[in-house]
């Protein structure tokens, strides 16, 4: 008995001590992934030239590729990865469902539908032939995507929470609304899109192709605001992951906090969908990966999720660029191919 207690205490001490190690490891992963994503790519730029560019010098070619193409792309990916991962974590906590994710809860599909409608309307209102995409809409896409995502989450909320559905049916409602909105988006694209379908398809797959500083600048405030809002909701979040009645006995208004956290998750996810398209599974997988890494050190879950979100998207995009060559594989395809096997394992494990 005494020995067990000692062993427990020492293991706890061991865990507390290695918490910093876990964080350092994740930071190291970020520190490795980001420079690699900037330095590697289809265009082969000598390392010395790349380093000179980052130091302020470098050839014109290297400056253009690194600073105008790869760096903003990586920055957008990092911000989107953080958004998706944190949104997934929040959704998993409030629905008490380990499988919640922006794309399973219908948020991504809502954003997709809004973007599809907006793009096609703007194409047809600006150019009668529908052959050119006007400059303005692209900058508006993230905002439009956000509205769509919020709308979808509102629908799920209306249907699921109003009728006191349990975690299972909230998820099923999300799946149903997602499927409905997806069918509508596909139909609208196929019905009205003509020459611009390829742009939409590229975006639908979830891609960091041709992302500029504008995209990063759009996403940054959402990411920062989302992260700033996290500390005050951590305690309510712990209670929300318990039962509704337990939460209420702690003096917490379950519904109000549920709504609040849902809005926060939705803002994070749908701004990211607007900027980079509905990248699948990052929101689902990253929190699980993080849980695996932190083990019982629950306090580290959030920071590790944030760091891993950045790494997952950056590494996935890099892999898609390197494997696909000139026809790069969109990051959304990479994450879906990697994510589904993991989802299947999770599904088979869930009781």
């Amino acid at each position, binding site marked *: 008995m005494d020995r067990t207690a000692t062993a427990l205490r020492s293991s706890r001490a061991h865990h507390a001590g290695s918490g910093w190690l876990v964080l350092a490891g994740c930071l190291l992963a970020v520190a490795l992934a980001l420079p690699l994503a900037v330095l590697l790519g289809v265009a082969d730029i000598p390392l010395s030239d790349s380093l000179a560019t980052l130091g302020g010098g470098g050839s014109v070619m290297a400056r253009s590729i690194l600073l105008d193409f790869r760096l903003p792309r990586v920055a957008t990916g990092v911000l989107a990865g953080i958004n998706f991962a944190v949104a997934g974590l929040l959704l998993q906590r409030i629905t008490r469902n380990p*499988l919640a994710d922006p*794309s*399973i809860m219908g948020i991504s599909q809502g954003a997709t539908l809004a973007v599809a409608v907006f793009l096609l309307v703007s194409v047809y209102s600006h150019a009668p032939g529908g052959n050119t995409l006007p400059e303005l809409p692209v900058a508006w896409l993230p905002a439009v995507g956000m509205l769509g995502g919020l709308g979808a989450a509102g629908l799920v909320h209306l*249907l699921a929470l109003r*009728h006191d*559905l349990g975690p*299972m*049916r909230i*998820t*099923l*409602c999300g*799946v*149903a*609304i997602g*499927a*409905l909105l997806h*069918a*509508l988006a*596909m*139909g*609208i*694209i*196929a*019905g*009205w899109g*003509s*020459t611009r*379908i*390829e742009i939409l*398809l*590229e975006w*639908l*797959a979830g891609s960091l192709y041709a992302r500029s500083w504008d995209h990063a600048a759009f996403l940054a405030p959402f990411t920062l605001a989302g992260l700033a809002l996290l500390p005050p909701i951590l305690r309510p979040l712990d209670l929300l992951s318990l039962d509704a009645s337990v939460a209420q006995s702690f003096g917490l208004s379950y519904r109000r906090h549920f709504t609040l956290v849902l809005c926060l998750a939705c803002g994070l996810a749908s701004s990211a969908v607007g900027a980079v398209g509905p990248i*699948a*599974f990052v929101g689902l997988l990253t929190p699980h990966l993080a849980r695996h890494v932190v083990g019982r050190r629950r306090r580290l879950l959030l920071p590790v999720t944030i760091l891993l979100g950045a790494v997952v998207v950056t590494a996935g995009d890099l892999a898609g660029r390197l494997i696909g060559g000139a*026809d790069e*594989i*969109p990051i*959304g*395809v990479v994450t*879906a*191919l990697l994510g*589904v096997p993991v*989802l*299947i394992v999770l*599904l*088979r*494990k*869930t*009781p």
Partner: protein
Amino acid sequence: MASRPSPGPLLLSPGLLTAALLLTAALLGGWGLLLGSRPLRPDTLLSVLLHPSDAIDSILVWTLRLPRSLCAFVGGVGLAVSGLLLQILTRNPLAGPGLTGVTSGAVTAILLCFVLLPGFSSAYYPLVGLAGGLSAAAATAWIARGGSGKGGPMRLALGGISVALFLGAVTTYLILLSGPQSTSLFFWLSGGFQGGSWPQLLAMTPWVAIGLAGALACLRVITLFTLSEQAAAGMGLNPALWKPVLLLLAVLPVAGVAPVAGHVAFVGLASPHIARLLKPPGPGWLIGLTAALGGTMVVAADLVARTVVLPREIPVSIVAALIGGPVFLHLVRRHRFSSGTEV
């Protein structure tokens, strides 16, 4: 279905109801022959139908509008029967060709063939679709069953969604790879009967017919399955033998319809439920009503899709989603998913 009230008397006899549905489908189809970017007068239509000729109106009716309407009807019948069989087989009200991954499997397999093996004859596409649909259904079933042996409706839905997401990613990549053909592929993928022709009708009808006839031939088995698996086993039925047979029967129509119509959502899910609302007196009439409803719904949806924004058209899947989506949401909200025995 625990909460369903005991079956009351039908307003109409089931035979009459089925006949009424078929008549509706025929009337809608006939009306559809008049509509289009070049509308016809009823008397012109009648003379063209009775005396086919080389006139534009005749070609319009005989090579464009008539085969298309028939394709829509047969496709709807196939999807509805497939949905009903899947719901009975999985004892799950949410099952359907869409949510069990069957349609995605068939569509992705066909697309894979089209993009990567261009020399492959399109005559074999139904077989390819069959293989794809069966594998996707098997994968979904495997996920849904989980480690504990029995999975609930929730797990089936999420399993199907994850399979569909995976196949969707593959599909998107294939379309991006296909370059100049991507637009037309996307149109096919998003579902619809535009360009439905006599050869296509001939190609898909046997598959749908085998599914429907097979379901009617297995009526005794299906009746027992609708009761419970224990009852079925108690009556000397071997589930290990009959489950794969029913699954094959469910996938056959989708394999036939997918090469023509792509991904038509929600018809397979919604038709059996609407048929049940009509309270058929037995599984035989349930199959008949479901088939007639599916055909009528898709003919109506196709008519709306091709006439509402003339001269353009919207894909039939939009219309189907607008009808089927609310049905699905209603099911999710209404059913108590605790019991595993609902059909």
